[in-house]
């Protein structure tokens, strides 16, 4: 591979890293929030745009950089998705920081670091790049979660995430070590023991058990889900939005590649374990959310369920990897939109408050008190429930299609059950939002227009893609096919 091609393909990474450095230097020279914010946003936009330039380098297929990275169209799609999400977070975050935080600039550095980490993952084809990408996101997030100075919940959330994530990471690492010991390679493509000796198999299997446990932690799948609500709850909503979307999406992107290149699912046992995890995640996640009264916790539990749904996309890759990628990307697009919107609403509403307005009662009558935020919240709840006119429906449709394509009837059953439970609490959000507001409900004024604008945009996207997803689907399908899946 020619060096120039590699540079061109890696351009987004370079731009982002460069931007990161520029922001850091800028901050070092003079602390100005506006400058930092603008620089960050410019960096993110530039990185997004740089994919256009970089895409031509891919030619027909992928660009392999050393043994650690394989950059292809799919990775770019993920990248753009993550970058756009990061952009939303940056916009929301700038308002949030502006109004509630004293020391603002480091946030952008952490955000850019986390974004870089998440961009690493979709292209990773090696355990080293996997763990490094994962940990860059993780380390940045610890600090981002605990970012506010005075309140106790963010700190508690940060600590919990750090300790538990530490345990998760060690499990992941230990698993990798065992897989490596079994197979002799840390590249995904060679990670299956080639000689098929029993010895290798056992190391390999135990390794996978540890590995997937670690991954399940990162994806907050049952039974490794238990930290999720606390961390989502404690973190500032803006950060939660990032945590719930980009960090999950990135992990999915990488494990999907691992599953495809490493043929992990050839092992019936691993497949079985993952199926069980998927099933219980769908059901338990939804059950946990059922009567939850805290909006952020509720969304956290629901994200557990959504991660369970998404495992279908992972499990299908064994028989139909293209469909798996398609499902994953489309679902993530939908999931990103709705999750960002939902947490975005909480974030925007809490802008002027000391404490986050995260109780479900605080959105009572929102549609009438604050029409844009209310409408977006309703649309995102409907979308999360997978009801038509919203992207969530097509996302769920893809899952059904993938599930049926793979003949995973148990999972489809769990998906139906899970969705059924889910409708209940999503509708509760909707119902609360359209209720007649309490008499003494204070008027919500002075909400930032940027925030509301972003929300409106997200809501609109959900609806537009929910009615005419054809272009999006075609794009995804073309890119996935071009990437050789």
């Amino acid at each position: 591979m020619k060096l120039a091609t590699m540079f061109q393909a890696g351009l987004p990474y370079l731009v982002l890293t460069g931007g990161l450095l520029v922001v850091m230097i800028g901050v070092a020279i003079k602390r100005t929030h506006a400058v930092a914010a603008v620089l960050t946003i410019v960096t993110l936009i530039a990185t997004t745009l740089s994919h256009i330039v970089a895409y031509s380098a891919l030619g027909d297929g992928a660009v392999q950089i050393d043994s650690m990275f394989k950059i292809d169209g799919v990775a770019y799609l993920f990248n753009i998705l993550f970058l756009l999400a990061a952009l939303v977070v940056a916009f929301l975050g700038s308002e949030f920081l502006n109004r509630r935080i004293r020391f603002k600039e480091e946030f952008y550095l952490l955000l850019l670091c986390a974004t870089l980490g998440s961009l690493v993952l979709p292209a990773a084809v090696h355990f080293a790049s996997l763990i490094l990408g994962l940990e860059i996101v993780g380390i940045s997030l610890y600090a981002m979660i605990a970012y506010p100075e005075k309140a106790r919940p963010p700190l508690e959330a940060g600590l919990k995430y750090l300790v538990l994530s530490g345990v998760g990471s060690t499990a992941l690492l230990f698993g990798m070590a065992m897989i490596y010991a079994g197979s002799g390679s840390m590249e995904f493509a060679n990670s299956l023991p080639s000689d098929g000796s029993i010895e290798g198999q056992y190391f390999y299997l135990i390794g996978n058990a540890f590995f997937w446990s670690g991954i399940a932690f990162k994806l907050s799948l049952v039974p490794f889900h238990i930290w999720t609500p606390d961390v989502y709850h404690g973190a500032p909503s803006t950060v939660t939005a990032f945590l719930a979307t980009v960090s999950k999406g990135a992990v999915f992107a990488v494990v999907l590649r691992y599953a495809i290149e490493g043929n992990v699912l050839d092992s019936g046992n691993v497949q079985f374990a993952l199926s069980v995890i998927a099933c219980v995640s769908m059901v338990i996640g939804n059950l946990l959310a059922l009567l939850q009264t805290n909006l952020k916790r509720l969304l956290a539990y629901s994200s557990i369920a959504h991660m369970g749904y998404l495992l279908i996309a992972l499990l299908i890759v064994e028989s139909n990897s293209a469909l798996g990628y398609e499902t994953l990307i489309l679902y993530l697009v939908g999931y990103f939109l709705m999750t960002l919107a939902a947490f975005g609403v909480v974030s925007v509403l809490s802008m002027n408050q000391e404490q986050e307005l995260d109780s479900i009662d605080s959105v009572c009558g929102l549609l009438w008190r604050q029409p844009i935020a209310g409408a977006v919240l309703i649309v995102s709840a409907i979308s999360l429930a997978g009801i038509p006119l919203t992207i969530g429906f097509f996302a769920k449709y893809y899952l059904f299609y993938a599930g049926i394509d793979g003949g995973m009837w148990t999972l489809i059953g769990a998906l139906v059950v899970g969705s059924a439970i889910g409708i209940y609490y999503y509708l509760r959000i909707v119902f609360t939002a359209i209720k007649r507001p309490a008499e003494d409900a204070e008027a919500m004024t002075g909400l930032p227009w940027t925030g509301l604008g972003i929300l409106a945009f997200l809501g609109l996207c959900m609806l537009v893609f929910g009615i005419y997803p054809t272009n999006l689907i075609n794009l995804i399908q073309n890119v996935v096919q071009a990437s050789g899946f």
Partner: protein
Amino acid sequence: MNVLVLILLLLGAGVVAWFSERVSTKLPNWIALITFVATTLWVLVIWFNGPDAAGLYASLRHEWIPRFGIELHLRVDALSLMLIGLTTFLGIIAVVSSWTETKTRHGFFQFNILWVMAGVVGVFSAFDLFLFFFFWEVMLIPMYFLIAIWGHEDKEYASMKFFLFTQISGLLMLVAIVALVWINYNISGTLTFDYFELKNANLDSATARLLMLGFFIAFITKLPSVPVHTWLPDAHTQAPTAGSVILAGILLKTGAYGIIRFVVPMFNEASQEFWIWGMSLGVVSILYGGYLAYSQTDFKRLVAYSSIAHMGFILVGVYSFSKLGTQGAIITMIAHGFSTAALFMMAGALQERLHTREMSKMGGLWVRAPRMGAVTMFFVVASVGMPGLGNFIGEFLVLIGAFQKSVVLTVFAAIGIVVAAVYGLSLMQRSFQGVPNPDVPKMHDFAFREMSVMVLLMIALVWVGIYPQSLLQMTAPLLPGLLD
């Protein structure tokens, strides 16, 4: 003629109505009314223009999501046209009946009504399964809003229950649709959601049975039939008048339509084997619904349970697999749309005047409002199945069709006629007859607005009752396609 225009018109009018609220609180009502009148006229025009050579009144076919072979495929044949006509007509009724009922958010109210109707029109005209499902779900959300915002005391529970039941059963249907498409794809190599292609899919009988069940459950939940009927009484009771009218008059019909249009033709063999279950469920619904109707003390709940009983006739008719039964089911759909809509409107009118639906707090209302009494009597009599009115035609055809399939079940279904008399007359007795209740406030009788609507409905019912042939001859050419 383009049916999409109709749907878009309804959707657009909804949005306009919503925003027109700022101009005047009455403006949304007028916009909705004019829209429904216009669409009804539109339906009448294409009705009189007659079908084209293929028996279609309107059709449209356009690519939507080529990735999965999903198309925007709308067709209006006689059955669809009839039901679309019913929809737009009841739209007028719904708007007029709630003219003074809503006190807040008039614009959003009419928006929801118009959007429900748009969804329903889509359901009745979609010939692409995905599109069908899409509309099927789309009509739920505005309906949910109608109940949840303008409903009565227990609106949260009722709206939630309504949504959960229909949505969960809808999920089963989605699974069945996707599975059907996928299987067809594996056999024929084309990925398509087209009704006609899928109708000819070569399924082995076990698969067909399972898939059929997926559809069937969704449709009987909407219909609704015992044992998945329990959402209906709550939803109807709590919904605002217009909501009840739409729910009973039209939304239930989508379930019946689904069975007639999809379950039976697409899984013909499986359905044929299934007939005993379908008919039995119908019979149980007739008897159990009727019985529970009698037990109720709430005016609306009583009517709601009676709907369950009437819908049971549709199941019986369809699963008799005869022309008579199917025609009977279709007529029942139309006639029940009229009669129940009127009864719910009556319940709404009473609630508006008395602030209660509890019949123990009524009694002797005839003295206060003889017109309302007479009107109620008419529709009770209609729903009891009096010959000469629409409901009788439907039920008679259903029973006579079913008789050839199963004597025993038909006999039980016929007992439902007696039960209907029991609850129908007890409704009449408890509300309008008997000693006038001294606690009842002074109430004004029906005035022009309400009366004119009721007269329209009465004329419609009599028309169906004495000249059902006008409808029967329209649908007759469709029957072979639906039955075999």
